[in-house]
């Protein structure tokens, strides 16, 4: 083949620069992000597959998996309903203080996970606001399931709202206004016009919300009390195993959460690729 001389466009980087930068980017992602992920799986199998699988047969591990699923099963739907309600209010109406409301919804993302747990201890803990009252009625929230669910709700609070608000603002009100002016009721407008329009965005938010709910560590750690088999979620169980020097078991349980993360990332990429137009514009690239 005859070599073709093609002048480099003025907005193109020099091939050497391109190579070097691509290499740096690949190294950053590979060494910094992917290698830790690979470590999880290799460490899990370091004492053989049998040890890794045995880690899941432990009653404490089963209890931890159950607790994680319960916490996510309560927190994710509640935050999804909240996200839909909040985005309906914010994107479909104009009212005073809207910008401030959006900022308030974002608060849990900027608060340290440890502080997120601490605030619930200060409300429901023995020395907290409602502590004496709860103790009188024999209700346990901190160091029990309700506290874990509440902490999970707090840290995953903004996910769905944050995805849906910009999406619904982008989509505008025309379709819903048309439906209402043609005589549709509010609920049938929501279920037959709004929901079909936002379903992929909703799924996207729920996906991220769920990943965080199942993986939350700091906030849940503060309210859990670390009672084995009772108030330990999967991330807390991993910590307990790790501190007990049961590394292979710790990494085996961790690999389950790592797989959840990979599945989440894959689904997220598919949604961004396949339904980009039906997600909030932030994800178009």
């Amino acid at each position, binding site marked *: 083949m005859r070599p073709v001389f093609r002048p480099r466009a003025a907005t193109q980087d020099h091939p050497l620069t391109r190579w070097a930068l691509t290499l740096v980017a690949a190294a950053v992602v590979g060494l910094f992000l992917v290698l830790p992920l690979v470590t999880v799986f290799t460490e899990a199998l370091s004492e053989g597959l049998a040890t890794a699988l045995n880690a899941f047969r432990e009653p404490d591990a089963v209890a931890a998996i159950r607790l994680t699923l319960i916490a996510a099963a309560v927190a994710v739907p509640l935050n999804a309903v909240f996200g839909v309600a*909040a985005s309906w209010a914010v994107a479909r109406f104009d009212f005073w203080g809207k910008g401030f409301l959006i900022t308030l919804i974002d*608060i849990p993302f900027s608060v340290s996970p440890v502080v997120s747990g601490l605030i619930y201890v200060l409300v429901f803990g023995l020395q907290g606001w409602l502590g004496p009252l709860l103790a009188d009625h024999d209700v346990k929230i901190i160091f029990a399931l309700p506290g874990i669910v509440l902490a999970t709700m707090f840290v995953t609070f903004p996910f769905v709202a944050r995805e849906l608000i910009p999406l619904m603002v982008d989509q505008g009100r025309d379709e819903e206004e048309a439906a209402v002016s043609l005589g549709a009721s509010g609920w049938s407008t929501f279920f037959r016009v709004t929901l079909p329009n936002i379903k992929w965005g909703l799924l996207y938010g729920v996906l991220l919300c769920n990943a965080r709910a199942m993986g939350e560590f700091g906030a849940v750690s503060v309210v859990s009390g670390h009672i084995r088999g009772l108030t330990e979620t999967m991330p807390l169980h991993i910590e307990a195993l790790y501190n007990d020097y049961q590394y292979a078991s710790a990494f085996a349980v961790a690999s389950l959460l790592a797989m959840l993360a990979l599945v989440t990332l894959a689904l997220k990429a598919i949604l961004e690729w396949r339904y980009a137009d039906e997600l909030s514009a932030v994800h178009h690239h």
Partner: protein
Amino acid sequence: MSIATATTLPRWRTPSALPGFGLSLGFTLFYLSAVVLLPIAALVVRPWEIGWSGFWNVLGDARVLHALALSFGGSAIAAAINTVFGLVVAWVLMRYRFPGKRLIDALVDLPFALPTAVAGIALSALYARNGWLGAPLEAIGIKAAYTPLGVVIALTFIGLPFVVRTLQPVLLELGREPEEAAATLGATRVQTMRRVILPTLAPALLTGAALAFARGVGEYGSVIFIAGNLPGVSEIAPLLIVIRLNENDYAGASAIGVLMLAVAFAMLLALNLLQAWTAARR
């Protein structure tokens, strides 16, 4: 207020043909107050039972000061590292074509998706003395795990996606026209980069760095395993809150908590201002 009709609307809302304002806003405010605002109020009120002097006593303690310095300093260094690496990764992902690009793009979100405890033990194993990266580092005399350097490594891991994801949409919107204009006016590639592209990206870079910093200051799960948590050496502020709570020192835990909350709110405010500034520049 919620039953207001089009003719008697209060002045704080504009009329709309759509129903459900009262229900959706009512539920939003109720849920927001119950889950977020009231519990935060409980923290803000708490440390004042020990008074200002008690509050300053807690924060003035050498161990607390060191933990705060490590959390803030470590996050600042990690944010600076991420500004550089994040810019390179975002640039490469938005401007070049190469095999595996989509995969790398998806993997950038890994620190968001991977539970912090999992990241924590993985980083700890990776950078430990006998770890894949720890051993070579040890060979050249650098100890990563159980030192402040380990804290920075974990915070860099956690913060990278913030910078990349903030830059990507801006790079997309920027397009190639400003670069073409610069080139036709005789600018070299380096000049274009320094005088056209970087200044345009500056607000986004700053936003990304601020987001990474804010996340780093409060980060707990991914740090505590690799840090080793030696008091006064590699102990971070969030861990100290946990330690105070375990000692039943609620006031002490709350004092550190309130400070971290104040910083979080200040960052939130700064980010909102930064976004308003960016929007005004367009």
